């Protein structure tokens, strides 16, 4: 019993991290068809900045904010200077892959390649009883945070006029442009916001998954699987997909450590067979 409670909490909280990482990538892909392989770099950047700030005795949540803001800033600069110059899908993929190589080397030069974990403040670093098990308080905070971000984004997209523009852009970009809305600007804002969330996820996740140079690739893989499962360009899809992937990945690692990565393949393969556009995909 305790085993399952702990695994459930771990899986769901991990899923929340994946949601924060994947939602920006998914929305930009849906809006502009832009596949940004370097998205995982924002996660790594957020994690490293957060780590550095915490080591400099900055408050934990301020460090998270710092990591997210730096990731956002870098994303905004890249978006303006470089990313807009890649026009076809192929050039986007190769160009952003080149960007990963550059950024990873920069990260190595600045922070070195040793994996590190961020130490939590004592307030958060406690166990609380849930049913018969004792689970880390931090995991519960993560679940709460992820759910709040999801509800906030969902409310924004479904209930506000700005969200309506994003929804319309996901459905028919040319029509939105014809109505005189600068969809490029909308997509740029979504991109930068997505990088903010990814950077925050990097710092928030640092006490759990650590920060190391492979983070960009690991996170890219997980985000891609989340999008395939949940469906492209959908906030709900990213949330449900992230929960499914978080739970299966976590359970897989706990139950069959030697098949860890294959348990990621299972949900993706099932979705490709029965619903190639994902659970909540638009196409």
């Amino acid at each position, binding site marked *: 019993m305790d085993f399952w409670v702990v695994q459930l909490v771990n899986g769901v909280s991990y899923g929340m991290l994946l949601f924060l990482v994947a939602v920006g990538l998914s929305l930009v892909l849906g809006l502009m*068809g832009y596949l940004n392989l370097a998205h995982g770099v924002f996660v790594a950047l957020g994690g490293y900045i957060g780590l550095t700030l915490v080591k400099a005795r900055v408050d934990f949540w301020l460090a998270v904010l710092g990591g997210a803001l730096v990731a956002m800033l870098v994303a905004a600069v890249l978006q303006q200077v470089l990313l807009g*110059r890649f026009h076809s899908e192929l050039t986007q*993929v190769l*160009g952003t892959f080149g960007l990963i*190589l*550059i950024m990873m*080397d920069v990260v190595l030069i600045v922070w070195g390649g040793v994996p590190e974990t961020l130490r939590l403040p004592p307030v958060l670093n406690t166990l609380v009883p849930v049913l018969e098990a004792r689970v880390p308080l931090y995991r519960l905070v993560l679940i709460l945070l992820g759910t709040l971000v999801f509800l906030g984004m969902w409310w924004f997209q479904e209930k506000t006029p700005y969200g309506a523009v994003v929804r319309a852009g996901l459905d028919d970009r040319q029509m939105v442009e014809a109505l005189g809305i600068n969809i490029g600007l909308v997509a740029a804002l979504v991109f930068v916001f997505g990088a903010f969330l990814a950077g925050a996820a990097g710092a928030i996740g640092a006490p759990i998954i650590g920060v190391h140079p492979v983070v960009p690739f690991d996170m890219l893989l997980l985000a891609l699987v989340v999008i*395939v499962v949940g469906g492209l360009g959908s906030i709900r899809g990213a949330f449900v997909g992230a929960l499914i992937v978080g739970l299966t990945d976590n359970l897989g690692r706990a139950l069959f*450590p030697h098949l860890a990565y294959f348990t990621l393949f299972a949900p993706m393969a099932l979705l490709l067979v029965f619903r190639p556009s994902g659970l909540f995909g638009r196409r």
Partner: protein
Amino acid sequence: MRTLLLTLAALALALALASALPAFYRTLLVLIAIWALLALSVDLLLGHTGLASLGHGAFFGLGGYVAGILSVRQLLGGAWVLETLTAVCVVVLFAALLGLLVLRTRGAYFMMVTLAVAQILWGAAQVSRPLTGGDDGLRGVLRPDVPLLSALPGGNGYYYLVVVLAVLVFVAFRFVIRSPFGYALNGIRQSETRMAALGYNVFLYKYLAFVLSAALAGFAGVLFVYYNQYIHPNALGILTSAQALLMPFVGGPGTLLGPALGAFVVILVQDTLAGLTERWQLPMGLFYIVVVLLMPRGILWFAASLLRSGRWRVLRLAKPRLA
């Protein structure tokens, strides 16, 4: 007859070139030949069928690992022909199953799914240490011994074997893309709906191209593991896949020599950078970006547009086009 003579001429030329080069450059030439085969396999999908795969490392690495494990454990008595055939068969089987899944997607989605599959294999190779050696890689793979060819300068028959096999594959590849099958693939790249309207079974053609391409990638992987006598999970990973996609892109997708030229340029650049500095990733990343920005249709097209000459048609450059 003409093809046969051309093949023999190409073989003689390649062997002469390989034996005339100093040892260091011969090694490099062999590495380029292996990567050229991988680039060619990617281009069967990219330049001819119009599918950009970001997961060819999966087939490359799988072929390499199967052959490597067979060789290290001496499961087939060290017979390299059998090891190669088994490895390619495993890759074909894997691709035949995978193709049913991933070919249900297209465009960016296809890239995402192929990339995810390759990364999953990469992770699996890292985790299953008893079989693959995990992050330490698989050591002790034995190179095939080729009696006849080892009489050539350098005494390493395997290098010449790769050169011979590469030339033969190129000839066979030319044969495939000039066949009705190859023309149908090019038709699919230009317009799937039109080909469907003409009565072609588009899925079947794409599926066959996918499996054939995977088989070639797996074959390149086998040659690669013998070349290095070692294989690391990174052979399966995104670095390999992206590099394999960059090569035909650099050379000129949809041309016969483009992928080989791309392999030549990319490996040369990478080798030079790796020789100059430990931080080769940063300049390599810059290289990716510069290529994408300056030559979005490849070197051959770039050169042709500079020269504006009709003679370049020899390289089948009439209409190179991106997917």
